């Protein structure tokens, strides 16, 4: 018996040595790929992982100037504070709702724009429209917000001037809670679609021409080409962008909301980011903002890991 066991040990030892050799051999064989990874991994380790201890601030009563270890531990106090706060829960609800609407409407919109642009024959028209719609992305919300306010102003804004001509009483859009979320969603769609459509245009550009040629030979019209060639061709791009978009579901827009928010619509518009910003204003309370940030990160991370797993279950392919 003992002999056999010893023999087994030897075999195991030999096996693991062999594994080691195999591993090293494998690495050597694939050295090009691994060498590609050296610099990027170095970046991640140094610039992303080393500072990660900063997350601890969420659990401490941190004051800049004190060391991280020296500060008092308050553990989950910040979390207890926000989750027992009705306004925070309201802000959370707003965040999720607004994000949800932004995803439902705002996610497909740039894709549709990209498809529409793709159908344009005239290259000049296509390019000029592309350049035009990509512009609002660069104008800060401070300016765009001011433009929006002036258009909807109840004192002679463009909209009310038109209504006046038509004999309708003026409406005060900006202060109406019913319209505020729509305003947020539509204005951000308009502002960002141009820039976001670029990725989809690039994706469409790399779809293999031969597949189109084959489809045309088979008698497919433009709509069928789009549906059976282009769409599947960019499906993986859509998938990764969608999953990544889900990960930022708890970010409903800070600058946009700060600019457009007013007391009458606060109950439907205040989101987590503006909430944290205002509570911390002038206080310099890093632990508070880090704590809420941690919460957002956790939710986002779970969402993308979850949706990735889900997509694997459903389509057999995972995005990463």
């Amino acid at each position, binding site marked *: 018996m003992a002999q056999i066991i010893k023999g087994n040990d030897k075999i195991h030892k030999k096996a693991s040595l062999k594994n080691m050799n195999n591993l090293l051999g494998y*690495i050597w064989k694939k050295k090009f790929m691994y060498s590609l990874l050296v610099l990027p991994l170095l970046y991640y380790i140094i*610039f992303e992982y080393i500072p990660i201890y900063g997350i601890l601030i969420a659990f401490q009563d941190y004051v800049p100037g004190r060391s991280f270890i020296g500060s008092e531990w308050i553990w989950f106090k910040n979390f207890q504070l926000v989750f027992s706060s009705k306004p925070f829960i309201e802000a959370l609800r707003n965040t999720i709702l607004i994000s949800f609407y932004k995803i439902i409407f705002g996610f497909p919109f740039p894709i549709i724009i990209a498809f529409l642009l793709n159908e344009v024959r005239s290259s000049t028209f296509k390019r000029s429209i592309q350049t035009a719609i990509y512009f609002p992305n660069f104008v800060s919300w401070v300016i765009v917000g001011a433009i929006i306010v002036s258009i909807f102003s109840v004192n002679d804004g463009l909209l009310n001037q038109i209504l006046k001509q038509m004999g309708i009483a003026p409406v005060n859009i900006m202060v109406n809670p019913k319209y505020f979320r729509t305003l947020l969603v539509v204005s951000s769609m308009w502002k960002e679609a141009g820039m976001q459509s670029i990725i989809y245009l690039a994706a469409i550009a790399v779809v293999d021409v031969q597949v189109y040629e084959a489809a045309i030979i088979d008698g497919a019209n433009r709509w069928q080409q789009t549906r059976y060639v282009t769409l599947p061709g960019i499906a993986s791009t859509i998938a990764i962008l969608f999953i990544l978009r889900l*990960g930022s579901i708890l970010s409903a827009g800070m600058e946009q909301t700060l600019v457009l928010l007013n007391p009458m619509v606060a109950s439907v518009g205040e989101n987590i980011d503006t909430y944290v910003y205002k509570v911390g204003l002038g206080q310099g309370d890093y632990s508070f903002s880090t704590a809420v940030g941690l919460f957002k990160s956790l939710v986002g991370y779970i969402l993308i890991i979850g949706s990735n797993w889900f997509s694997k279950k459903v389509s057999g392919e995972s995005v990463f």
Partner: protein
Amino acid sequence: MRKKTGLFNQINYILLFLFGLSALYPFIYILTISLLPLDEYLRGGPFLFPKNISFEAYAHILRNGNIFMSFKSSLIITVLGTFTNLFLTILCAYAMSKTKLKGYKIFINLIIFTMYFKGGLIPSYMLIRSLKLIDSYWAIILSGGISTYYMLVMRSFFINIPESLEEAAIIDGATEPYVLFKIILPISLPVIATVGLFYAVGHWNSYFTPLIYLNSRKKWPLQVILREILFESTESMRTAGETTELQKSAIGPQLKMATVIISVLPITMIYPFLQKHFVKGVLIGAVKA
């Protein structure tokens, strides 16, 4: 069939045209105000066709001593930053597109984790400080070295490239570096151009990071200087003695708009040059050959 597509085309053109117009409206609005002499602005109205034009606002900005230096700074940060970003991102995305590589799962999970869990401003600053990079452009460039988001997008494009392409090349005796540089990259110009554009825009617009990591005002990029000029002219502080000369002068709104135009124009002009990369047909006959 023809009629249908004809109608569709017309509607398409109209819709896109309207969208483009609505997107241009703020641009025209901003440009017009920036060129107005004061009295025309205050009279209100839609500002479409001003009768008189004044470049006073632009002159004022260009007179600022820091403007040209800050423009140079922005240029350095954007160019150097984008190159570094693309370099690192391409390497990472390509390697990570090889999902069968041993260790892939570990690497990808480590990377994605950092997309969500970050240490925050203060530890990052302390790190940069201990690397003695404070007040150097490299602090900005390296601290944003790879955007995992863009890396994942690029990776998805690489994965989409048919394997047969690489296999064919290897059968023909190509080495792995050759495959990457001579085959994959040329085909991937659209995504590289796109991601490059996004990185460039990010750098050009960056305001906060340069502020934190750069102490010398000489190195502050355009956005910082423009905001300072802007702040100087808006009347947000009304305590006695705090009002500046500029707040008293009459070119506030024009100045605000002129700063927008100056900060946006350079980056908007890059786009048309990149558009040629979004043309179909890059993959012509590659596998066949």
